[in-house]
């Protein structure tokens, strides 16, 4: 039996039903993220003890490690956490909308659109504009692509199956476009674009952290707001509508949340693969099917995945700095196969 807590104010202005297991899991996950952040900042070409890291962050270390910790490592670690959290949550929302555990922002063309725009920016505009504008292009790419998918899927409302089919179609078009642009472009800009495509938080600066932080802080509560209807949507459009869900409106809001999360994440870190697919799967094993818990658990899991992948990427192959995207895919994909294999009776 699932242990639950009931939280009610006196006049019942607010009331919540909270599962004990979910509270335990989500708090532990957040602690793990914190540990990962500190360890990630400690480890590098020279080791700085976690305690020293903490002192430095708190400004109690008389500037001893300020440059390495505050300028080089911390923004990178924070960015990987934010990107991972955004991708994990985006995937969880999308799997809820599409009602399919195989949905993710990479599959239905959101990141594909961002990638095409980013590669177009690097190869076609190539240096005409400041590289600082690349994230903006990527976000616009993600939004425009999603808008196209949504419009094409519209037939007096959009259905999950139409969204996913058209998404896959659009995704392969953007993929072809991206490859085409890469082939036509000069060697050096293709290289630059290629690293972006793999997904990396290399050379992350505070500017990028500040770009994505407000988006995430804004969208997390918004997604949780919409998540309530995801539980009802899981029963199908008819039942959800019967329960009083304004299905189309909720679906559009959720899709927008998912697109913004994935779009901004990808815009600063490139197309980090597999996190959006895998984080919700792990979350589901840990906290079950209810979407409030699922979204809250997917975020720290995504953060751990990207933060961990980046940590491995920049330490295990010194002096090489391997993009985090290599490891999220390299570790993520086999792990995903393992999950499918372990639960093969269920699928």
């Amino acid at each position: 039996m699932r242990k639950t807590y009931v939280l009610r104010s006196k006049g019942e202005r607010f009331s919540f039903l909270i599962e004990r297991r979910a509270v335990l899991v989500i708090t532990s996950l957040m602690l793990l993220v914190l540990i990962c952040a500190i360890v990630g900042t400690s480890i590098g070409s020279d080791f700085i003890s976690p305690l020293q890291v903490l002192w430095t962050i708190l400004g109690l270390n008389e500037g001893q490690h300020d440059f390495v910790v505050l300028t080089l490592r911390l923004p990178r670690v924070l960015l990987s956490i934010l990107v991972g959290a955004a991708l994990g949550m985006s995937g969880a929302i999308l799997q809820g909308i599409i009602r399919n555990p195989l949905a993710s922002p990479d599959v239905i063309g959101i990141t594909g659109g961002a990638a095409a725009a980013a590669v177009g920016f690097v190869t076609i505009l190539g240096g005409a504009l400041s590289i600082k504008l690349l994230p903006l292009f990527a976000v616009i790419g993600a939004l425009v692509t999603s808008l196209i998918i949504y419009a094409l899927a519209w037939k007096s409302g959009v259905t999950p199956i139409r969204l996913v089919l058209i998404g896959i179609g659009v995704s392969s078009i953007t993929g072809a476009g991206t490859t085409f642009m890469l082939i036509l472009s000069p060697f050096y800009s293709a290289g630059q674009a290629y690293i972006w495509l793999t997904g990396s938080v290399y050379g992350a600066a505070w500017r990028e952290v500040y770009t994505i932080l407000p988006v995430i802080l804004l969208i997390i509560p918004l997604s949780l707001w919409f998540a309530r209807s995801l539980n009802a949507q899981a029963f199908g459009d008819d039942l959800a509508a019967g329960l009083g869900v304004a299905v189309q409106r909720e679906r559009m809001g959720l899709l927008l949340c998912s697109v913004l999360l994935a779009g901004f994440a990808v815009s600063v870190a490139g197309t980090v693969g597999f996190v959006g697919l895998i984080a919700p799967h792990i979350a589901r094993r840990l906290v079950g099917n209810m979407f409030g818990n699922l979204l809250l658990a997917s975020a720290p899991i995504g953060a751990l995945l990207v933060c961990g992948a980046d940590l491995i990427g920049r330490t295990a192959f010194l002096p090489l700095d391997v993009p985090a995207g290599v490891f999220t895919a390299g570790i993520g994909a086999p792990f995903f196969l393992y999950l499918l294999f372990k639960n093969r009776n269920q699928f």
Partner: protein
Amino acid sequence: MSILEAKNLTIAYGPEPVIEDLNLTIPQGQITVLIGSNGCGKSTLLRTMARLQAPRSGTVLLSGEEIAKLPTKEIAKRMSILPQGPSAPEGLTVNQLVRQGRYAHQSWLKQWSREDERMVELALASTRLTELADRPVDALSGGQRQRAWIAMTLAQGAGTLLLDEPTTYLDMSHQIEVLDLLFELNEKEQRTIVMVLHDLNLACRYAHHVVAVNDKSIYAQGQPEDIVTRELVRDVFGMECEITIDPLFGTPLCIPHGRGRSIHGKPRYDQLVAAGAISNSG
């Protein structure tokens, strides 16, 4: 008073309407059953009355108010709909399922009020699922599962309950289990129930009011004993039959003509029982 009313309803998926200029009044506090052959539009009619499908023209009135103008949450508080063959995500427990019935009464800050809790407990109790509340829905029997879905619609707290073929895919004992429950809900709590049923005999047994849908419109409606005749079955279902009386309930019983094994001239079942050759004690 009519709780639910369809006025000049025309429903179409394509150019050809499925239902044309149909008027229907659902009596409050009774069980109404829609019958008709496959594809006659009875499910479409039910869906339209539940605002799941927009009509091409005409209106549906819920206690006198146009449903097209009511907020969907407001409708959900007064009328619930259980579509055909619902499915739950794997691993979802009965409790979690039934709680979803409270959606229309909740907001982001009010996710689990005392009223929510009371209604869910009540719904579980009246469907006799309290003991099974922590079981996953996919581990239940067909009849129990359908009861869980009905419990969810009960938790919604609506006075009117619409069901699209609530007995499909259920074997006979589970069909009776589900229909008995609905009958009880109507009797004890005076809930208005509107449902589509395939089985004419069960419709005659449980319905106060039968609506036979045929040729885009209503062929006949009324008490089963008044309207279910050979002609009705011939015109609505395209089948020859004899109508006799249900020996247990006295309601009309339809026995179809057709081919089959006839054992006239051999000892009949009741004669064998009388002779003690077989036991009738069950």
